[in-house]
C-alpha cells in the first residue's frame, strides 16, 4: 500500500513536469509565446512582457493586440531594414518577480533584440533593471512613473509621465472648470495612483487651489461609502480619483447613490470599456486625461481605430494606441540605426524626433521620455468624448 501510493505520487509529479515540458498547449490567441529556440535567420525579435492573466490582464492584452497589429502591418510592407519582425509575448501575471523572470527569459532564451513592456510602472522597474544591466533596449508603452526611465540609458517610453499628467488635469480643473476645492481619493495599494495623486496635488495647490480632504482605498475594495461620506461633508467641488477603472466605476456609483453629485477627475487608468459598464450614468460629467481620444479627427489615429476594429471587432483603448505606437517607435529607430545592434538601437531611440504616431507627435527628450500632448476626455452618454488637448 505504501509503495503503491508513493509510486502514484511520483507519477503525479512526473506527469505534471512532463506535461509542461511538452509545450503542446497553445495559450489563448493573442498571447502566443512563440517557439523557443533560435530565431530564424534575419528575423527581428521583439520581446513583450505584459500582464496577460491576473486582474490587470486587460492592460497587457490590449497592448499585445495592438502591438501585433503593428507588427502585421510592418511585415506586410516588407518588414524593417529588409527583415521581418516577430513578437514573443510572456506573461508577467502582474507580479514583480515574474516580470524579472520573463525579461531574463526573453533575453537568454528567446534572444530578443529589444524589449517591449510593461504597462504597470512597478513591473517596468523590475524588468527594466535587468534590461539595463544586460544592455538590451527597452521601450515601455504605458508606464507613467518617472522612475522607470531613470533606471538607465537603455530604457525608453512612449507615453507621458505622471508629473505631466497630474499637471494637465490640475490645470484643467483650475482654469477650464474653475474649481477651487478638489478632494482626493487615491488607491494606496497602487503606486501609479499614489504618484499621480501627488502630482495633481502639487500642481493644483501651486495654481491656487485647495485640497479640503484626502481619502484612500485599496485596489479590490468594493465599498467606498465611508470615504464618499467623508468627502460629502468637506465642501469639495470635485473629486480627483487617479485609480484604475474597476474601482473608479464603483466609486462613481457609490457617490451617486449617496447623493454626492460632484464631477470626478482622473487619469489614464480609467481607460477601459468596462468603465462605462460599471459606472453607468454616474460617470456623466466626469473628466479624465488620456493618451488619445477615440473620436479623434487625426487621420493616422482614425486609420488605427478602423484597422483595430477590423481585426479584433472592438474599439482600441489608449493602451492599445500606445502599444501600437511603441512598436512603431522601435521600428523607426531600427530603420534609422540600420541594424539591431543594442547600442546603435539605443542611440537611434534617443534621437527620435517628430515621429508621427497615433497618439500624437513624439520627440524623445534627454530623459528618454517623449514630449507629447495629453487629451482630456469628458464622459457623456456612456462614452468618452474629446474635451481638450494639452501640450507640454
Amino acid at each position, binding site marked *: 500500500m505504501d509503495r503503491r501510493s508513493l509510486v502514484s505520487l511520483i507519477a503525479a509529479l512526473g506527469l505534471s513536469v512532463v506535461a509542461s515540458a511538452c509545450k503542446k498547449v497553445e495559450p489563448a490567441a493573442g498571447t502566443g509565446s512563440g517557439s523557443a529556440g533560435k530565431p530564424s535567420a534575419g528575423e527581428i525579435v521583439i520581446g513583450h512582457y505584459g500582464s496577460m492573466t491576473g486582474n490587470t490582464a486587460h492592460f497587457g492584452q490590449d497592448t499585445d493586440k495592438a502591438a501585433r497589429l503593428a507588427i502585421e502591418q510592418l511585415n506586410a510592407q516588407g518588414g524593417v531594414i529588409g527583415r521581418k519582425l516577430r513578437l514573443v509575448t510572456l506573461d508577467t501575471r502582474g507580479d514583480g518577480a515574474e516580470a*524579472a523572470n520573463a525579461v531574463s527569459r526573453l533575453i537568454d532564451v528567446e534572444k530578443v533584440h529589444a524589449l517591449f513592456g510593461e504597462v504597470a510602472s512597478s513591473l517596468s522597474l523590475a524588468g527594466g533593471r535587468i534590461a539595463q544591466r544586460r544592455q538590451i533596449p527597452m521601450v515601455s508603452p504605458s508606464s507613467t512613473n518617472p522612475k522607470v526611465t531613470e533606471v538607465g540609458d537603455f530604457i525608453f517610453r512612449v507615453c507621458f509621465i505622471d508629473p505631466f499628467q497630474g499637471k494637465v488635469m490640475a490645470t484643467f480643473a483650475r482654469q477650464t472648470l474653475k474649481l477651487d476645492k478638489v478632494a482626493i481619493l487615491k488607491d494606496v495599494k497602487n503606486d501609479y495612483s499614489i504618484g499621480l495623486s501627488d502630482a495633481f496635488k502639487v500642481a493644483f495647490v501651486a495654481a491656487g487651489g485647495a485640497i479640503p480632504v484626502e481619502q484612500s482605498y485599496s485596489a479590490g475594495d468594493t465599498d467606498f461609502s465611508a470615504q464618499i461620506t467623508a468627502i460629502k461633508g468637506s465642501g469639495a467641488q470635485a473629486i480627483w480619483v487617479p485609480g484604475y477603472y474597476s474601482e473608479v466605476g464603483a466609486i462613481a456609483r457609490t457617490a451617486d447613490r449617496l447623493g454626492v453629485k460632484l464631477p470626478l477627475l482622473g487619469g489614464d487608468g480609467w481607460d477601459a470599456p468596462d468603465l462605462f459598464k460599471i459606472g453607468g450614468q454616474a460617470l456623466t460629467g466626469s473628466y479624465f486625461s488620456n493618451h488619445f481620444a477615440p473620436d479623434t479627427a487625426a487621420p493616422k489615429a482614425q486609420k488605427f481605430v478602423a484597422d483595430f476594429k477590423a481585426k479584433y471587432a472592438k474599439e482600441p483603448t489608449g493602451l492599445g494606441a500606445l502599444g501600437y505606437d511603441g512598436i512603431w517607435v522601435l521600428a523607426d529607430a531600427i530603420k534609422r540605426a540600420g541594424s539591431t545592434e543594442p547600442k546603435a538601437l539605443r542611440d537611434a531611440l534617443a534621437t527620435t524626433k517628430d515621429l508621427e504616431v497615433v497618439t500624437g507627435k513624439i520627440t524623445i527628450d534627454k530623459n528618454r521620455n517623449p514630449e507629447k500632448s495629453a487629451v482630456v476626455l469628458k464622459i457623456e452618454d456612456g462614452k468618452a468624448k474629446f474635451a481638450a488637448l494639452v501640450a507640454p
Partner: protein
Amino acid sequence: MRLARRLAVVVALGLTLYGVQLLLSGGVIEYVQRIILLAGINIILAVGLNLISGTTGQFSIGHAGFMAVGAYGAAFFGTQLAPGIAGALGAGAAADALTFNLALVIGAVLAGLAGLLVGAPSLRLRGDYLAVVTLGFGEIIRILFNNAQFLGAATGYFGDSPAGLPPYTNFFWVYAWAIAIVVMIRNLTFSQTGRSLSAIREDEIAAEAMATPTTRLKVLAFSLSAAAAGVAGGLFAHMQSGVRPEDFRFDKSIDMIVMIIIGGLGSISGAVVGGIFLAVSLELMRDLQQYRLVLYALLLIVIMLVRPAGLFGSRELSDVLRARFSRAPSAGSGVAK
C-alpha cells in the same frame, strides 16, 4: 582533531561553492541561474517551515509575513550600512560581502523577533485556529508594510539608487546560507530538544505531563523558522532589486506549504526536495500559464488524498537509502511513522 576536520570540511565546501559559482556565471544563461537561486531560497524556506510545521506539528500559514520582515530588514539596513562599511574597507568585494551578510543577519533577527511576537500569543491555540491566526498575522504584517511610507509603501523599497538594491545575491551566498541553515536545523532536530519537539507533535499533553516546557519550545521553534524565512527574504530581496508588499501575499505562504507537503511533513530531506521541485516546476510550467495554478491546487488535493505523507513521509533520505541497501531493518532516525 575533530575541530580541524570540521574546518577542513567547511573550507572544502566553500571552495566547491565558489567553483560552481564561477562555472554558472560563465557558462549558464541568467534565466537558468535565476531558477537555481530561487531553488536555493526555497530550500531555506521549506526547511525552516518544516521545523515548526513538520517536526513540531504546529501548522503555520502566514510565514510569508516573516519572509517580508527579513526582506525589508535586510534591504533597509543593507542600504544604511553600505556607505559606512565601504568607507571603512574601501568599496569592493569584501565590503559588499560584509554588508550583505550583516544585512541578512539583521533581517533574520528581525524576522525571528516577529516570530516571537506572533508565536507567543498564538501558540496556545490548536491546529485549525493556529493556522487561521498565523494567516491573519501574515496579512497584518503585509498590510503594515503596504502602508509604511518610509519603506516605499505599495511601490516598494528599492534602496537608494534608481537601479535598485545591489544584486548581492548569487549562487555562493544562497547555497552557503542554505547549507548552513540545513545543517543547523538538522542538528537541532536530532538533538534532545528536537526529540522534545517531535514529542509535542505526537501528543502535546503527554509531553507536557513529562515535564517538557512545551510553550517555550514551540515558541523557540517558531522564532527559528521565522528567522530562516527572514534569511530567505533577504536573499530574495537582493535578487529582485527591490521589495514589494505584493511579493509576500498569502500565495507565498501557500507555496511554502506545498513544498513541505510534497516532500513529506517532518522530513528535512523532503523539504529540500520540495523546495527544489517547486522552483523548477513552476518555471517549467510557464507554458501552461493559465492552467498552472489550477494544476498546482489539484496536485495539493491529490497528494492529500493519495499519499498525505508526501515523498519521504517523516523519514530522511539517509533512512530510505539505509533501508534500501541493508538487510537488517532500519530503526530510522527521529520518529518514524
